[in-house]
């Protein structure tokens, strides 16, 4: 029992609630947010190290032991994601401080963002399938509100679609929960896993697994990503970046967690399907990423490609592949947020949304221009940026499983990613300088700081991958050995 | 003021009853009383006229009148429904009342609505004229006018003395 395990969710939650009381004190809100995020990061690092040293940490809420009460389980996988999420979120907040107007701050933008982070962190940490649903809802509700925040024709229109599709997804989640409770009679994920391992048969379970696959695929944007590009396009940049960095990740996490822990009965069906869907996602995402000149569309489809790529790791379902997926996962958090912020900044500077209407930004914003260049390389998974190590490990895993075509597809997708941004870079960052009176004269410090921090993260994670390696290995170890997780949750005393 | 105090007591008593305890417990009553205060505090700005509590008997009388009318009217309606050939002429007519306060008017309207085959549809702004829909207007007019004075009497007994 370790109360700290709830902190990643509780800190943003508490601060969010407190900030509601101070809606008109914007300075105070900013300080509160910064305080919360820094505290969160420190806590997460501490927890991560604790997990590494003492094994999986659990918290039985109210002292009701698993499987009866709700359990929070912090293993390396979850903690790595939580930590990355909080760092990225901090950067998004920094960016938000200078881009979100007073009106947004007064209308709960910061508390809502914190709520969303709380939901995301909760989803990563929870060890209870129904609680996962609830955490999803916290995150979703916050995202519903955030996406609509500020109103406007296009924004409301797209959010409507987002909300409706997610309502359907939540419904399907509940159907899945009903089915899994009907078959296995429990909700605790470790307990579910244990029961599944006991029978180790059952197309019925596979049917249930497929329902969950659809649910999480919808959230992750795995093949069923129709809601994604539109809804990532409309919110304010800082919010969109938070979306881009966090929202799909929870779905991906859930897929990884459940399909390594619980739904392992007929991997030839479920995991093959995941692989096919991942490939289809990559292909469709690639079409989208190069088909449009609207910057925000390009960003949206890049997210889609990333989702497909990460899930190839689950398809291979093998130690290196999972390690690679985890690395790439963390990388994706960081670099997608950065991508959103940079594209948002371009739009902010020029007021244009199509890249062929923007040119030569590097003449006025050299630092920004070079950041963009590095970001592009990082996104394409070029060494020594953070994407590479994940890509490489994933490649090793796929090679090990003999999945050469998938490997080819996955690796070539990074060319598409590169091309989609290379066009932007050459046209809008490079090129003759654009003499426009509409253009903003400078980029505020905190915006630049946010982007620089993320850039440092992506370089740091790439160059300093060795620091993360033991944690990633530990995370992959738990994913490949469900019994470790089950043991830690159900039999903490080693019984 | 008196009315509020009364209601407060009512709540406290209600509370005791709701608790379903074996014996009458002063502390329970007190808790109820406190809750009552809370309720009163929440509601205290909505009050109109004061209310007098000594008319218990007249209230009971009124209540019985109510019940009687309800049963009679139901019987009439049921009879109509069950009659193979429905021979009714519905319609709307007016009735002038001498009653004054909101409470009186309300009570009368409720009674009228529960009277055989009549429903109060509108009350004029001054509250003196009722527009009444009757299921069978010929019969209802007679019934209503006949029972109306009794109703007004009973109500005034409760409210005015």
């Amino acid at each position, binding site marked *: 029992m370790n109360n700290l395990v709830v902190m990643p969710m509780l800190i943003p939650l508490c601060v969010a609630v407190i900030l509601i009381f101070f809606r008109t004190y914007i300075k105070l809100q900013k300080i509160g947010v910064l305080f919360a995020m820094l505290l969160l990061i420190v806590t997460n690092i501490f927890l991560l190290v604790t997990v590494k040293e003492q094994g999986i940490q659990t918290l039985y809420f109210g002292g009701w032991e698993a499987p009866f009460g709700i359990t929070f389980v912090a293993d390396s996988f979850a903690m790595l994601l939580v930590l990355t999420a909080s760092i990225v979120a901090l950067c998004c907040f920094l960016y938000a401080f200078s881009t979100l107007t007073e009106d947004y701050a007064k209308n709960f933008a910061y508390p809502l963002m914190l709520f969303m982070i709380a939901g995301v962190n909760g989803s990563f940490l929870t060890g209870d399938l129904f609680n996962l649903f*609830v955490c999803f809802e916290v995150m979703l509700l916050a995202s519903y509100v955030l996406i609509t925040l500020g109103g406007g024709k*296009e924004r409301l229109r797209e959010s409507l679609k987002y909300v*409706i599709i997610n*309502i359907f997804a*939540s*419904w399907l989640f*509940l159907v899945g929960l009903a089915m899994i*409770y009907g078959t296995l009679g429990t909700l605790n994920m470790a307990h579910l896993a244990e029961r599944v391992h006991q029978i180790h048969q059952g197309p019925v379970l596979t049917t249930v697994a497929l329902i969950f696959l659809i649910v999480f695929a919808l959230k992750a944007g795995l093949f069923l990503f129709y809601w994604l590009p539109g809804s990532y396009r409309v919110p304010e940049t800082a919010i969109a970046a938070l979306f881009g960095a966090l929202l799909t990740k929870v779905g991906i996490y859930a897929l990884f967690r459940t399909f390594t822990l619980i739904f392992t009965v007929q991997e030839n069906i479920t995991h093959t399907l995941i692989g096919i869907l991942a490939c289809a996602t990559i292909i469709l995402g690639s079409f989208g990423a190069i088909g449009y000149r609207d910057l925000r569309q390009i960003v949206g489809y890049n997210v889609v490609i990333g989702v497909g790529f990460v899930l190839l790791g689950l398809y291979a379902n093998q130690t290196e592949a999972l390690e690679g997926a985890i690395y790439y996962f963390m990388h994706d958090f960081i670099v997608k947020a950065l991508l959103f912020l940079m594209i948002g900044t371009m739009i902010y500077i020029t007021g244009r949304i199509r890249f062929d209407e923007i040119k030569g930004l590097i003449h006025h914003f050299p630092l920004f221009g070079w950041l963009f260049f590095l970001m592009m390389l990082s996104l394409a998974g070029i060494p020594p940026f953070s994407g590479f190590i994940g890509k490489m490990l994933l490649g090793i895993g796929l090679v090990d499983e003999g999945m050469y075509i998938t490997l080819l597809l996955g690796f070539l997708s990074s060319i598409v990613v590169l091309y989609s941004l290379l066009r932007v870079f050459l046209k809008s960052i490079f090129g003759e300088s654009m003499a426009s009176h509409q253009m903003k004269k400078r980029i505020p410090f905190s915006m630049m700081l946010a982007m620089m921090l993320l850039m440092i993260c992506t370089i740091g994670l790439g160059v300093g991958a060795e620091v993360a390696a033991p944690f990633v290995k530990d995370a992959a170890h738990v994913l490949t050995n469900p019994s470790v997780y089950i043991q830690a949750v159900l039999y903490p005393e080693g019984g | 003021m008196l009315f509020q105090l009364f209601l407060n007591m009512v709540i406290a008593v209600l509370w005791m009853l709701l608790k379903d305890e074996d014996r009458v417990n002063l502390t329970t009553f007190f808790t109820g009383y406190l809750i009552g205060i809370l309720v009163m505090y929440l509601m205290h700005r909505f009050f109109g006229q004061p209310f007098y509590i000594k008319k218990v008997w007249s209230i009971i009388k009124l209540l019985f009148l109510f019940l009687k009318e309800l049963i009679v009217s139901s019987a009439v309606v049921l009879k109509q429904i069950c009659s193979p050939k429905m021979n009714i002429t519905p319609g709307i007519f007016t009735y002038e009342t001498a009653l004054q306060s909101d409470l009186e008017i309300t009570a009368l309207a409720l009674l009228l609505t529960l009277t055989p085959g009549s429903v109060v549809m509108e009350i004029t702004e001054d509250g003196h004229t009722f527009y009444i829909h009757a299921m069978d207007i010929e019969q209802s007019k007679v019934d209503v006018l006949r029972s109306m004075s009794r109703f007004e009497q009973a109500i005034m007994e409760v409210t005015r003395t």
Partner: protein
Amino acid sequence: METLMVCLIGIFVAVATYLLLSKNLIRIILGTALLSHAVHLLILTIGEVKKGDVPLLKEKPGPYTDALPQALILTAIVISFAVTAFLLVLAYRVYATNKTDNVEKLRGDEYE
């Protein structure tokens, strides 16, 4: 009883799906409401239906019906209430800004 319930749920799901696939916003919202009814009943049905007493310990000696699904449904009801409320208001705001309640007209011009 379970058979009947499952059939009822099936009807709910079918109707709700049809409503969701229609153009009108209110119909869609009604569809989501119906979907949630369906799944609440589903959870209840799949838990042990009517196999015991009301889950109030002081009143009955037991055995009791499965209380856990009930608790889950309760949570689900609240959440679906919150979502429905939000969706309703969102629908009205969409209508106010886009001047239409027909989702087919809400495709957006950037796709053309």
